[in-house]
């Protein structure tokens, strides 16, 4: 089923890609866009519903002011102008997950428009993505198809509907066509969405969890021969649900469209689906089947006219831009680009910052979160902030290491203890007897025992091969269950055999 593709390099040699991204962000307001129902994720199906979000005959929407506030803050953070006057519109189409068979959205009057987002690429270059608009809309319900082989609608015996998500507020952010990225288009796409994620998290307006569908992305891709002004025909890959997939989908579409064009064909305007397991896109629906949404202003709601004073008040609440903040922290901490990227990729920026604030050296904080604790989170299948160890506890562990009370190896056992609920790091050290032994008498006895057990190694050291001391240190460590002060042990060995 795979379509022919051109190698990435060949594709880029012949064609310039243009991309466009539509990102849907689910807001984390306590209640829904048009009613008072809870937006909590994961509740029993259809328990968070009422006549309004079920679209029962006669029911009417009432807009959630908090959602408007979040939309404005988001628009401001995206360097957008905020509309002085705008309206909600109805987007009419039929689908069983749409309670009213129209979505209350915004059409020609978005709340925010004409903005940009600066995206930092891996080589440190900053790429500016222009934003056309950010508008408010409501989410649909969730359909589960059962009884078929594929979990898809086609072939299913029946479908279940859960309207808990119906009416949850969404913001859709639409870019202008992004050109000039060249071969880096896939990276720009990925970094753009990641930067949106960072921004939304910094704003606190969304949980931005791709796995829970609170951040979703559609990617438009078109190609044109280098030097041509007009854009080529585009395809739209829908509902991409991981950062890696965004990069993959854009790269794949570039290669696929290049093969079509190279072959003398024309790219068909259509939607496409991203097939994660194959790393490919597949045909969705063609332009001919495209729906006419018959937009018109929502007559059940009054226009939204945020006062300029309010907008300025909200502007004053904006947090530091994530990219700026990252650059500031990197400079403060003296991290290399690679180290900083590791921290960001591990989603550990906030945790490292909190650990540093709690008194730990930055490098130590980075090391714990991106190695030991990242591994544990990964094994448990949770996010870093759910791993069960707090920044303050990490700082306390590092303080014990710096004081020479424990070493890195013992620190891992301290984390075991903390996670097992044995108390704070110091308590775990005391309870488990984990402190490093640096008492000369005890270490001397252990060294003597090791020399006696390894006469050949002892002879090598006596013969001047000092590096062989490592084997004896290892034996002592084993004897003392890792709790020996390694430097002291080495000192004693060389003293005895020197």
């Amino acid at each position, binding site marked *: 089923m795979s379509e022919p593709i051109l190698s990435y390099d060949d594709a880029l040699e012949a064609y310039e890609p243009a991309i466009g991204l539509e990102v849907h962000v689910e807001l984390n307001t306590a209640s829904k866009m048009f009613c008072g129902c809870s937006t909590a994720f994961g509740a029993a199906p259809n328990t968070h519903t009422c*006549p309004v979000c079920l679209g*029962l*005959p*006669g029911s009417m929407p009432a807009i959630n002011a908090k959602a408007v506030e979040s939309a404005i803050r988001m628009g401001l953070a995206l360097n957008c102008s905020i509309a002085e006057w705008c309206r909600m519109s109805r987007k009419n189409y039929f689908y069983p997950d749409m*309670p009213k068979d129209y979505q209350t959205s915004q059409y020609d009057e978005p709340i925010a428009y004409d903005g940009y987002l600066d995206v930092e690429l891996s080589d440190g270059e900053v790429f500016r993505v222009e934003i056309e608009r950010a508008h408010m809309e409501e989410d649909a319900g969730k359909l589960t198809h059962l009884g078929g082989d594929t979990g898809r609608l086609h072939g299913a*015996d029946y479908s279940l509907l859960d309207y808990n998500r119906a009416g949850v507020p969404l913001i859709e952010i639409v870019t202008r066509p992004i050109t000039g990225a060249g071969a880096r288009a896939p990276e720009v796409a990925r970094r753009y969405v990641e930067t949106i994620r960072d921004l939304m998290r910094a704003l606190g307006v969304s949980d931005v969890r791709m796995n829970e569908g609170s951040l979703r992305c559609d990617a438009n891709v078109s190609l044109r021969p280098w030097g041509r002004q007009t854009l080529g025909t585009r395809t739209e890959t829908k509902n991409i649900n991981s950062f890696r997939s965004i990069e993959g989908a854009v790269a794949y579409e570039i290669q696929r469209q290049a093969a079509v064009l190279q072959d003398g064909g024309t790219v068909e305007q259509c939607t496409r689906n991203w097939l994660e397991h194959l790393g490919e896109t597949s045909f969705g629906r063609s332009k001919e089947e495209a729906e006419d949404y018959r937009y018109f202003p929502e007559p059940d709601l009054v226009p939204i006219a945020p006062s300029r004073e309010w907008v300025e008040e909200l502007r004053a609440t904006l947090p530091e831009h994530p990219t700026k903040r990252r650059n500031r922290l990197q400079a403060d901490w003296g991290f290399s680009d690679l180290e900083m990227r590791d921290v960001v990729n591990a989603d550990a920026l906030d945790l490292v910052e909190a650990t540093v604030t709690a008194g730990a050296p930055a490098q130590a904080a980075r090391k714990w979160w991106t190695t030991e604790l990242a591994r544990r989170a990964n094994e448990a299948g949770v996010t870093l902030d759910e791993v069960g160890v707090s920044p303050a506890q990490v700082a306390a562990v590092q303080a014990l290491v710096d004081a020479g009370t424990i070493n890195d190896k013992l620190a891992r056992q301290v984390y075991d203890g903390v996670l097992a609920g044995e108390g704070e790091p110091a308590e775990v050290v005391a309870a488990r007897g984990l402190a490093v032994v640096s008492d000369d008498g005890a270490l001397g006895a252990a060294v003597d025992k090791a020399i006696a057990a390894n006469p050949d190694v002892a002879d090598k050291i006596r013969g001047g091969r000092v590096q062989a001391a490592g084997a004896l240190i290892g034996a002592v460590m084993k004897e003392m269950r890792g709790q020996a002060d390694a430097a002291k042990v080495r000192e004693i060995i060389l003293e005895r055999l020197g």
Partner: protein
Amino acid sequence: MDASTLITASATDLAAAIAGGEVSSVEVTRTHLDRIAAVDGVVHAFLSVDEEGALAQAAAVDARIAAGEQVGPLAGVPLALKDVLAQKGIPTTAGSKILEGWRPPYHATVTQRLLDAGIVILGKTNLDEFAMGSSTENSAYGPTNNPWDLTRVPGGSGGGSAAALAAFEAPLAIGTDTGGSIRQPAAFTGTVGVKPTYGGTSRYGQIALASSLDQPGPCGRTVLDTALLHEVIAGHDPKDQTSLDAPVPPVVAAARAGDVKGLRIGVVKELGGEGYAPEVEANFRATVDLLSGLGAEIVEVSCPHFEYALAAYYLILPSEASSNLARFDAMRYGLRLGDDGTRSTEQVMALSREAGFGAEVKRRIILGTYALSAGYRDAFYGSAQKVRTLVQQDFTAAFARADVLVSPTTPTAAFRLGERVDDPMAMYLNDLCTIPTNLAGNAAGSFPTGLTTDGLPIGFHVMAPHQADDRLYRVGAALERTLTDRWGGSLLDRVPVLAPTATTTEVTR
């Protein structure tokens, strides 16, 4: 009071008698239920009667009065509710097969306010399907007959509510008005009907026809009864964002005063002439003279864009309706046909809608879908919205010269059942005088001012500026007082006596 007095008494008098302990609400309610059982077989004003619920509400009011509690001015009085407003647990059909048997899990705000005021809801009244029509012949459950002449229509879409009043089945009723659905039936039945200022009453729980035009309003046999009911249902509702957060105009005081001295009354030049029945025009002129005689100042005003109002209305209404009615897709409630596992979602939807929607509803959905479709939206929906603005400007200019505007409510008196069913355009022309008000969102009412030589009622239409609903009642009360004196009683005293029949309306619950 004996039974015949109980059914002809005004709501105001009934409430006073109930509050004063002269008669119980249960007794009044029982009498009306008996009346419905006796005459509704020929009138068919009701789609369902909630005997148990009505008697329970009446008993509750009686208990409150017995306990010495202060109750509202209409407490204990029965009412007929147009079946387009949600009443929790009670079948609500909007006159359509697609909602047959649906029982809302919630009350419309209007319904809630009626119950809170101690008003007794007898049942749900018949209407044109989804309130689309001017005759109540489009109801999926059969037409309602006009009590003045059972071979004629009671008007639409609120024909059931108006007929219930004229047949003395209920002293109060609620209607909804999108293009005249309260006022036109009031004119055809010799009753009073008011469409409040848009936003004056909550639409929450009213099954939407065209959201920007719809408005629930009070219907009564007297001006004061109507004003009292207006006051019960009006006022801000946070569940309806188009609802006005402003004080309710002093409608009751205006109905009690009924003084038009010095009031500037504007006769709309464009609402008359060709197409208007001579008897209707003559009655209108006589009524204007009467108001002049009472001290009102009469001016002629011109509203040049009213001639396009009907066309604009018949683009805006179907556009909004096509969207509002989309939810009736057989997926969640109501009629569902063909769901035997062999058909797709779309096929089940199509089969259910084919059977569940009547011809007029389909016609308007198709019109609206077309008017909003890509490539046509600007030409149709867009132009209609521009006309709407021009109509609003006409009103603004006219209200600068006059305190209220007047016209006949309808170009003709009630027509015969079946006479216009095959001619939608002729049917649509009925709403010529009432539609501009809905486009502009101002208030208007219809008051009975006489009979044709055939003995059919004629209505007088009064339009007031936004949130000046009280002016309608001033004019209405002045007319009512003068005409009652002149006639030696109410116009409804002349309605033919309905003989009890064996056929009865089905009682639900």
